[in-house]
């Protein structure tokens, strides 16, 4: 994480026009999938006695944006949080089945959740900058990893903020509080903070749902920009967002059992975003995606 590939530093300074990125996307998505980065097999997740998600099986591919869509309570966020073991923090959470990351089980006996999270970062629904300066927010992760060199930290902070398209707005006030930023800026700060540790995967839990349309666009452009280097899994309630940014889409659905009055989330369909939105195979997917406006 000390040095970035030389081309990234220059590439990030001049962002390509968003439109160009959007046009490029469809033909990419139909291309053959790259390497599998996650392998989810028969995963069910419980919170105490409550089964939040049942039997999810899906691969996630490298350097792609995978979108999870579906109604509230369908378990998208639960599955997302399982990828970097954030569910460990919830009392009573339990996972059955297997979830592998680059061939290694994430829930194996010797696996440290901390080590997992250093490679698999997360951006939350509500921007949560630390009550520290902008600089310290971004430098937080590298410092955890033992980086003490002021010069290196300066570089990491600048590169990360540039990648998050926030540098120009904050470069003159790196010492002001991270909480002084607007919602959209704060979310980009959180993204900068996440990529400052050079993770392999970035998980995003409805990263734009608390933002206005302009900030949402900024975050979406950023995602497209970031997927060159990272693998992104994003939960979204916004189907246009899924079609705009994602290569692959997974549709979750709530199954309600009338008799026992229990609800659980299931994965009903998973495919390229194009296929999911233009040719959905499952009637439930069809119902969900045709609710789409436009």
């Amino acid at each position, binding site marked *: 994480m000390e040095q970035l590939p030389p081309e990234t530093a220059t590439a990030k300074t001049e962002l390509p026009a968003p439109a160009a990125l959007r046009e490029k996307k469809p033909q990419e998505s139909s291309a053959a999938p790259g390497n599998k980065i996650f392998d989810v097999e028969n995963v069910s997740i419980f919170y105490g006695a409550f089964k939040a998600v049942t039997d999810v099986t899906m691969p996630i591919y490298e350097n792609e944006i995978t979108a999870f869509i579906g109604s509230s309570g369908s378990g998208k966020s639960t599955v997302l949080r399982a990828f*970097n073991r*954030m569910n460990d*923090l*919830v*009392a009573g959470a339990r996972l059955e089945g297997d979830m592998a990351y680059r061939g290694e089980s994430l829930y194996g006996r010797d696996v440290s959740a*901390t*080590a*997992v*999270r*250093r490679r698999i*970062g*997360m951006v*939350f629904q*509500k921007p*949560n*900058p*630390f*009550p*520290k*300066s902008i600089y310290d927010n971004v430098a*937080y*992760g590298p410092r*955890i*990893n033992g980086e003490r060199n002021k010069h290196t930290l300066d570089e990491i902070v600048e590169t990360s903020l540039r990648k998050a398209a926030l540098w120009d707005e904050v470069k003159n006030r790196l010492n002001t*509080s*991270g*909480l*002084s930023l607007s919602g959209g800026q704060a979310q980009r700060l*959180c993204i900068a*903070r*996440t990529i400052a*540790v050079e993770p392999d995967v970035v998980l995003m839990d409805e990263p734009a749902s608390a933002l206005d349309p302009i900030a949402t666009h900024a975050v979406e452009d950023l995602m497209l920009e970031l997927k060159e280097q990272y693998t992104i899994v994003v939960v979204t309630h916004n189907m246009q967002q899924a079609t705009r940014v994602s290569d692959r889409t997974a549709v979750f659905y709530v199954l309600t059992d009338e008799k026992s009055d229990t609800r659980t989330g299931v994965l009903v369909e998973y495919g390229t975003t194009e296929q999911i939105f233009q040719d959905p195979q499952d009637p439930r997917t069809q119902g969900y995606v045709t609710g789409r406006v436009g």
Partner: protein
Amino acid sequence: MTAVAEPGRADLREPAGWRRTKNRIMTVLMYAAFVLTIVPLVFVLYTVIAKGASIISWQFLTAEIPFNVAPANVGGMGPAILGTIEITALASVMAVPLGVLGAIYLNEYGGKNRNLLARFLGFLADVMTGVPSIIMGLFIFSIWVLYFQFSGFAGALALGCLMLPIVIRSTEEMLKLVPDSLREGSYALGATKSRVTLTVVLPAALGGIVSGVLLAIARAAGETAPLLFTILTVTAANPNVFSGPNTSLPSQIFVNASSPYSGAQARGWGAALTLIAIAFVLMITARLVTARFDRFSR
């Protein structure tokens, strides 16, 4: 107030009748309650200042405590001020770290649903809050003073016992206010629990913790009962807090106020004013500290 609304304009007042009357009655009652609360406070402050202000001087703050027959212009409360500072400081050194660490255990390590030990400790802290302060003094008297004699340290032990639950509870409340989203943000970057606590939770709660601690100190500095059985309340200054009888402002107030001599009584009022001033300074500091640490949370 016009009885009839002009035609064409909305009448947005409270509807006439019982509801409007009720509103007035309640407003009056609120003001009355406010005045009632203020009266004793102002009265206490006024009395103490009126009776104590005239005696306060540099001499009063530093000079030895004279025999109680001495007139008001002789001697002062120097040893008592020294004793209060020594004893309270020592009590804080013992109780504050323990209390803050205890609260961190309760809130951060006890688990969301509170494991058995955390629940037990929380319960003990609650019980300890309710223990009358004189009992704390008796307790230290029976386990310490009987074996090791009267000393400032014994007083500090008693005050520490009194401060501990206050520090635990106020710190815990402050830690509870730190949003979980901050903890999650830190965990998501690969931080360990101790690091999350040290680098995110504590700094975010620091202002509140410090002001809670200062209020606990102010409370302890004003306690008389725990000191009655522990420091013996002598008149000589004792810079050694660990051995020999000591004295303090509250216990001097107690002794002087019950003395029949007007000079001693005047010194009692002066001591009372000094004590209030110390508490006031601590509270102002608490406010300033909170404001200082809130710089990044706005």
